[in-house]
């Protein structure tokens, strides 16, 4: 579904991604790990089309479409979803209004009629239960005054509503206590199917105990320097990143 080839990107003339190659197929879970500043969050920003980053080379194909040519909203319509590391607070925009607009814009993109109010609220109820968010959520402003755990659960709730084909979870475990982590992870696992895929960006092995990856990649200095099975995550947890850094730095 996703094919990233030699992707390069920079921000304010500083190159952050220096040739990323990654292929993701339906049903797979990929974990991307790496030390701070290696470009993990930049990768998710570039894939979703954040305007602050400039793509300087390479290509990304998503179900055969040139992803980089699409606007952020069209990428979402095509089935790409990002769970933000720091979900944005939007005072004055209620969750219900936000979600209804998002859903109906997607339906418009595919030439469908807007959802009726009743069907929409039913869907909200159903999806909310996946991450145990209470019903006050609908009237609250998007992420405003939400606790760290609520914000992350809210991200997974939105993912459930939008039913993406590829979800990128950017440090979804950061700021979560164990209980919230379990709820979030079980939500992600509930939504998993043979037709969709997940990229999990994380620092720690901890999240991968709950969301089992098929592949683990190490991102360092803007490149994927190592790819292996889930056992690599365990090895990293034990030994840290230094041995990889040394290997890579020695080669250069």
């Amino acid at each position, binding site marked *: 579904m996703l094919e990233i080839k030699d992707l390069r990107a920079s921000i304010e003339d500083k190159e952050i991604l220096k040739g990323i190659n990654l292929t993701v197929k339906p049903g797979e879970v990929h974990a991307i790990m790496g030390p701070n500043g290696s470009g993990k969050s930049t990768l998710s920003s570039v894939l979703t089309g954040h305007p602050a980053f400039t793509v300087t080379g390479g290509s990304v194909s998503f179900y055969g479409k040139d992803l980089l040519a699409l606007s952020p909203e069209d990428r979402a319509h095509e089935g790409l*979803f990002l769970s933000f590391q720091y979900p944005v607070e*939007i005072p004055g925009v209620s969750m219900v209004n936000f979600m209804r607009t*998002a859903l109906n*814009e997607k339906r418009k993109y595919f030439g469908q009629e807007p959802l009726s109010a009743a069907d929409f609220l039913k869907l909200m109820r159903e999806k909310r239960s996946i991450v145990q968010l209470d019903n006050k959520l609908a009237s609250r402003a998007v992420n405003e005054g939400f606790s760290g755990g609520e914000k992350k659960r809210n991200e997974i709730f939105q993912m459930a509503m939008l039913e993406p084909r590829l979800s990128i979870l950017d440090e979804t475990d950061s700021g979560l206590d164990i209980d919230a982590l379990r709820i979030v992870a079980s939500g992600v696992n509930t939504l998993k199917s043979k037709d969709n895929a997940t990229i999990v960006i994380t620092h720690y092995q901890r999240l991968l105990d709950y969301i089992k990856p098929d592949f683990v990649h190490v991102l360092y200095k803007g490149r994927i320097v190592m790819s292996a099975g889930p056992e690599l995550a365990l090895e990293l947890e034990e030994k840290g990143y230094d041995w990889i850094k040394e290997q890579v730095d020695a080669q250069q």
Partner: protein
Amino acid sequence: MNALKQYIDLFDQNSSLIEEQSPALLNTLRRVAREHLQDAQLPRKGSEDYEATDLEAVFAHDYGVNVNRLPFEADPANTFHCDVPNMSTCMYYNSNDTFHSSATAERNIGQVVVEPFSMAAVDYPEVMSDHYGKLANLSDPTVALNTLLLQDGLFIYVPDGVVAERPIQLVNIFNAALDMMVQRRLLIIVGKNAAIKLLACDHTQSPDYHYLNNQVVEIVAMQGSTVDFYDMEESTPLTSRVSSIYVEQHEGSNVLIDGITLVNGFTRNNYHVEVNGEHAETQLLGMTIASGNQHVDSHTFISHNAPHCHSNEMFKYVLNDNAVGAFAGKILVKPNCPRVEAYQGNRNLCGAPTAKMYTKPQLEIYTDDVMCSHGSAVGQLDEEALFYMRTRGIGIDEARRLLMQAFVADVIDGVRLDALKDRLHYLVEKRFAGTLSNCAGCLQACRKS
């Protein structure tokens, strides 16, 4: 060149005609206004309190004045559909400069007096003469001009202890087939422990003519009274408005003034509040949504002349395209007024780099033991919030609209009339979507913004 001259000359040539058709009460003050205008000049852009606004240029246009009191359309309710309907209000119409009541006016019969000055001068001569022109300041040339040319106005009187059951709605319409200036005037007297909610909306039916509404409103809130005055403008790019609202508050009164501009050409709104009695509360709210070449300037002055009073002021602007907004707010706390709480806020969103906002907060405090603050900010749409929404599939235009609507939501929520609050949320949504009823013939092209 002095733009006032054409109107003063017109008065001098027609003074006897004007005076014959007006209640005597108006004529007494008219002579005083004439003296004030003898050497008066309208403020030019850059003069004090007019940093962004050129009144001379606004009045320089050759407007017609209805000196002969020619009647306009008999019943505007037949042809005009107001954007704020079905609120169970008592509806009154003001077609250009002529008042009409409607069938709904009977709803408040026996409670509230709403009638033109020509009738009120006969029915309530003492109330009229006690209050007409007492608050309005004739050294402001626009107020003097209003007083000079005024032939009729609307008198709203809520006697002591009367709580008006229904809101009063006054629909002001421009529909004359010529360029025209009108003097609109309201005198609102709310008695002791009385209460009333008023909604005035300014509309323009004919988008092809230049109109100027030179308006003066005087509101007296007696001891323990409650007054809500919502003043909404939804006109056209060729419509100008200069409005001065004067308020006097007595002990324990509670007054809310809310100025809303959805569509206009040029607008200057002056608010002058004298808080004279203890334990009075004042809410002064403003919301402006401007695009194209709209110009909206609000000038506020709240004078705390008594202790233990509370005022809260919040003005919000959303400006797009080449729109210009201005806000100047002054709060004065006089000596010996302890325990006054006065807050002022002005928040502005510039959605385009070509939009301009001028803002000037001012506090003058001559008493210790008060709590006062002011805050003023001009910003752009939150880029991160926009991106967040786009990653959820909300297109950039829709995302901008949602954020702009959210920005003004709390000012709308300050409205103390539920039906109007809901209606305003709806109208603002339509305004940002460019689908207000008068948008079809409008030149603003706000669809882009």
